[in-house]
């Protein structure tokens, strides 16, 4: 039996839904239906059309690109239930959210939590409007899984920090306006010698070199800092207190990455199910069974795992909403999500055979070529944002309470 309060909430949501529909009707250009910008983070920003610009401006002004962020900094100020309604209504008409990237997924939530009032006023509104691109300056050549081994120095020079060192895997470094970086401010301590610093990428002494990936794309860069002057007010949190902020940000990263496939789906990629693809490339018997029995079983096994994964995502969300505290299941999301994404990509190229291994040029459809690139790009999912091995260490240590093999090991 629904309570009176719940019924009232439902009525409020209904009127909010009507408001959303009306607003979308007035502001979402029909020409953009079904288009998304999922590949912008991998292939770089494309030149936006007039409609795309208008849509970005409209949703940016409204704050609905970041619906749950506080209104005072340009967010939507919506509750979870309202945000869900907004998401449903946008999905219903095929409207994508053009406000995204690392600023939205990772940096913004972290700055809202740890930033000063002045830092929030400066940096959050442009993220809400999609005007500023942020990149992540975490990893270094010798600090990958062992991130706290980072060596990029920020020396205190009175009114500014002087930054020297190298970052790698700077996502979108070549397109970014600003970088949130972990830097070493104390060389005598490991974790407690790290600070969280905001660096303007236009500063003199910043050099960016794109990294070419096995998929042919260059979504990451090496970033070199040579005597880069960074104002003191760009320090987030306390000096030498950056590690916990940096880790908090990684939690945002991992929760946004566990969605896996949807966030890395290339433009024009295959949207048919593996079963449909298999029928197309391998044929089916009179009853519609994929003719290659072994591949059919492999597809079913994969689809079942994917289904179990999405049920787990749903259960975790319900448990959080039901105030049962964070679900233990959240710790497995990144790894299972990565596996599901990669298995799907391997199965897709297996189903397509040689057609799933095209690189460019004649003889392959756009979808086939996108499938090859997606398969190769997907290999990163189990490496970035904390590799599968590191995630398993976390589960073993923190969830299962298993002991370390020896001091200092992960």
């Amino acid at each position: 039996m629904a309570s009176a309060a719940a019924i009232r909430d439902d009525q409020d949501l209904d009127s909010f839904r009507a408001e959303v529909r009306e607003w979308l009707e007035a502001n979402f250009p029909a020409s953009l239906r079904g288009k998304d910008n999922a590949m912008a983070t991998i292939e770089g920003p494309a030149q936006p059309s007039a409609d795309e610009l208008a849509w970005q401006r409209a949703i940016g002004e409204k704050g609905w690109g970041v619906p749950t962020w506080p209104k005072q900094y340009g967010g939507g100020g919506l509750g979870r239930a309202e945000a869900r309604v907004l998401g449903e209504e946008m999905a219903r008409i095929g409207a994508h959210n053009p406000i995204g990237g690392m600023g939205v997924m990772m940096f913004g939530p972290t700055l809202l939590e740890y930033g000063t009032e002045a830092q929030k006023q400066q940096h959050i509104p442009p993220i809400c409007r999609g005007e500023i691109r942020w990149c992540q300056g975490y990893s270094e050549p010798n600090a990958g899984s062992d991130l706290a081994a980072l060596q990029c120095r920020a020396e205190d020079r009175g009114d500014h920090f002087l930054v020297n060192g190298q970052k790698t895997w700077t996502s979108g470094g070549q397109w970014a306006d600003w970088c949130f970086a972990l830097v070493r401010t104390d060389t005598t301590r490991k974790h407690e010698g790290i600070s969280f610093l905001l660096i303007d990428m236009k500063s003199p002494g910043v050099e960016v070199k794109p990294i070419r990936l096995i998929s042919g794309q260059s979504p990451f860069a090496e970033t070199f800092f040579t005597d880069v002057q960074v104002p003191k007010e760009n320090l987030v949190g306390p000096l030498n207190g950056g590690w916990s902020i940096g880790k908090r940000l990684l939690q945002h990263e991992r929760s946004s990455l566990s969605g896996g496939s949807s966030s890395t789906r290339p433009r024009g990629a295959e949207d048919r199910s593996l079963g449909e693809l298999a029928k197309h490339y391998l044929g089916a018997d009179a009853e519609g069974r994929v003719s290659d029995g072994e591949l059919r079983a492999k597809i079913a096994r994969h689809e079942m795992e994917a289904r179990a994964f999405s049920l787990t995502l749903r259960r975790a969300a319900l448990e959080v909403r039901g105030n049962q505290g964070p679900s233990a299941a959240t710790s497995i999301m990144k790894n299972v999500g990565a596996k599901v994404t990669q298995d799907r990509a391997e199965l897709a190229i297996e189903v397509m055979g040689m057609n799933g291994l095209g690189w460019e040029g004649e003889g392959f459809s756009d979808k086939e070529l996108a499938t090859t690139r997606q398969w190769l790009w997907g290999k990163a999912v189990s490496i970035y944002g904390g590799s599968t091995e590191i995630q398993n260490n976390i589960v073993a240590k923190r969830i299962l309470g298993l002991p370390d093999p020896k001091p200092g090991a992960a």
Partner: protein
Amino acid sequence: MAVLNEEQTMLRDMAREWVQNEQPITAFRAVRDAGTAEGYDRDAYRTVAEMGWTGVIVPEAHGGSQFGYLSAGLVMEELGRNLVASPLGATTAAAGALALGGSEAQQAAWLPRLAGGEVVGTLAVDEGPHHDPDKVEATAARDGDGYVLNGTKSFVPEGDSAHLFLVLARADGERAFFLVPGDAAAITRARRKMADGRSHAEVRFEGVRLPADAKLGGEALVDPVLDRARSLVAAEMLGMAGQAFETTVDYLKTRVQFGQPIGAFQALQHRAAKMFAEIELMRSAVEAALEAIDAGRSDLAETASLAKAVANETLNLVSREMVQLHGGVGMTDEYDAGLYLKRARVLENQWGSAGFHRDRFAKLNGY
């Protein structure tokens, strides 16, 4: 490792030395980045021929050394280690077909040139994205005292540069390989740029007129020819798996994180140990297939399917692990992991997926 005789040991050592000294992976990268349709280095192939590797399975009477398939596999394995871009595998498979089913005149006309490296040969079998020799629709219709060949072959290895095709087609109520010189006017080639950066082409045969003796044997020759090609490609894959594994183990020993080489972590040690075991099994299966060819054994079909299925599974695992265990740098084009991964998947598809060969293995064993 199979017990090798003195000739085989010398051959392997020579191939190993040449590949390690003259054909580092940067040589493959140079070919890839040059982006030519033929997709191999002519000077390097001339050297391959001068060393006699193009004639390893060719009878002595026709200019070869007749060492056999185990020996040819040794060379392919070494080439595979550094991803050497060479038409040797395709040419050896074509020479094998001729040596099995060619007339004396055909053998005399073509084998010395294949063995001498002047002619690149290849098998043209499949007509879709999956290996399926039962589904061949190309036809060689009787025409006077010869045949007229029509059909389209997809993903023909070295299809852009081949001077000689052995085309699987239907004729006289059966399937047979047809000997088709590459300079025939009614042949068109369309390059297919694939992830492995090697040469592949779609080849169309539109009304190619052939003499009666262009037909090599008949149905009975189809599987033996394909099983030779499968065994050779499995040998190349064995070399790739071995090198991919060794490069990965080296990385585990040298990459330091958390104050120690990552190879000190037991979870990674066990994955390396598992790959080591799989590669040992792969070697046994591949060598058994090559030996079965040399010994003329009647269970070649089953043995070749075993070799290709095991090779596919093992190289798939090792190439995946190579990227993952290299971490971030494994994702970069600068490191070699991606090169092995991409070539691996193409060869896994060539001459039959693991599923194809498991199905065939089961059929051959009556279940």
